[in-house]
């Protein structure tokens, strides 16, 4: 198990390899469809994304006794952001993207160029992942609706697997190829 702890420096990120299991601790910003489209179209980010992590997640957050509490915080499907992600990684020097299902060649290329990785969270593990959020630091772009806003979370020991590294390796591409080869032996 690799501990990935803020600050997320280029060196730390480039040291990660496809297949590494990590426990992430530090700041992450959620962002899904509306945020990606907004930033891609030139919208000004309300938070400084440089050397930060974007989490594809539409959390369930409610206010209890005046305090934000995260009720569920699993990943959403990342591939929907493929048209935007590479551009945003380059533009803002984003160091990691968390999501599920993996992403495509444009994102992989940007990861290599900038020094960024894709961290695959466990899809459906809403409760385990919500427990990893120790603090809600704030919310912006709330006008997009609560699940689509940018939430600033502090996480501790958030479990994920590096499925796309900064050296051009994608576990998704590798598993796809392997499974296609194996299918040929079965049909």
């Amino acid at each position, binding site marked *: 198990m690799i501990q990935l702890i803020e600050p997320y420096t280029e060196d730390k990120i480039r040291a990660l390899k496809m297949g590494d299991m990590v426990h992430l601790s530090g700041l992450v910003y959620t962002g899904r469809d509306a945020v990606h489209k907004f930033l891609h179209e030139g919208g000004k980010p309300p938070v400084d994304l440089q050397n930060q992590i974007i989490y594809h997640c539409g959390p369930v957050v409610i206010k209890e006794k005046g305090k934000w509490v995260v009720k*569920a915080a*699993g990943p959403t499907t990342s591939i929907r952001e493929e048209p935007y992600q590479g551009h945003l990684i380059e533009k803002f020097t984003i160091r990691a993207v968390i999501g599920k299902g993996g992403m495509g060649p444009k994102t992989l290329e940007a990861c290599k160029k900038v020094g960024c990785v894709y961290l*695959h969270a*466990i*899809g459906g593990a809403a*409760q385990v992942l919500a427990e990893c959020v120790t603090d809600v630091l704030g919310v912006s772009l709330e006008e997009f609706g609560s699940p689509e806003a940018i939430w600033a979370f502090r996480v501790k020991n958030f479990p994920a697997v590096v499925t796309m590294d900064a050296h051009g390796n994608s576990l998704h591409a590798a598993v796809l190829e392997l499974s296609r080869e*194996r299918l040929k032996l079965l*049909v």
Partner: protein
Amino acid sequence: MRNLKPNLLELVRRTSAELPDDVVNTIVSAATQEQEGSNAQYAMNIIQSNIDMAKLKSAPLCQDTGSILFFVRAPRGFDQLAFEKAAREAVAVATAKGYLRQNSVDSLTGKNTGNNLGPGSPAIHFHQHRGTRVDVRLILKGGGCENVGAQYSLPDVRLNANRDLDGVRKVILDAVIQAQGKGCGPGILGVCVGGDRATGYVHSKEQLLRTMDDVNPEPALAALEKDIVVSANKLGIGPMGFGGATTLLGCKIGALNRLPASYFVSISYMCWAYRRQGFVLNDSGKIVEWLY
């Protein structure tokens, strides 16, 4: 029928927070198949912790609480309209209580209705039978896995799949390859051979009402179900598509008659968060048995 609304609310709560025992047992035994220290084992461990934690906290297992699919078998004279009303009210309350996420969006305006009610939500399938009991089952099926479902029309030239069970096998395995880990695998397939494009998909979902250990009474389909699981698990896709031994936890296949001109194979992919519960009510509306 007395207490229908609170009973249905409890059904929704349980379905959202607790996986049925047969599914949990299958997941637990599949986890032992993964290699020590592998990404696959890591994923399976987190999945198991999540199952325990959701039950303990009585909180949604997954934040995508999915399409709400009721299947009701009831005697003649059962008041379907009253059931529908109670079900809708129970769903709205369940949403307000956080058992369900606000998950129903107007397809034209993009507006979330906020209570999971709207055209098509919840979906209720009624069947009459000659007993006195009312059998109510609920499946919550998320978007990630629903998106990787597929319908094939045989023959399929690309896959060299003809109009026979071997062709059916080929297209099912193709669907598994296309899905990779995107449907939050390891998955469970519900399949219908035949029917039309609409009845085929409905019947594929009805297959998901069967328990994991249920054996198909039709020997040819029973053999195919087994073969699909064994073959899919040789593909190496694994939990979450990380690579590994368990790509599918199960496969259930039903058949409907078809027109001579068509031959559809409809495949519903269910994620590991296979939320299915049900109960039986007696004629005064009391829960006499929990299914699953």
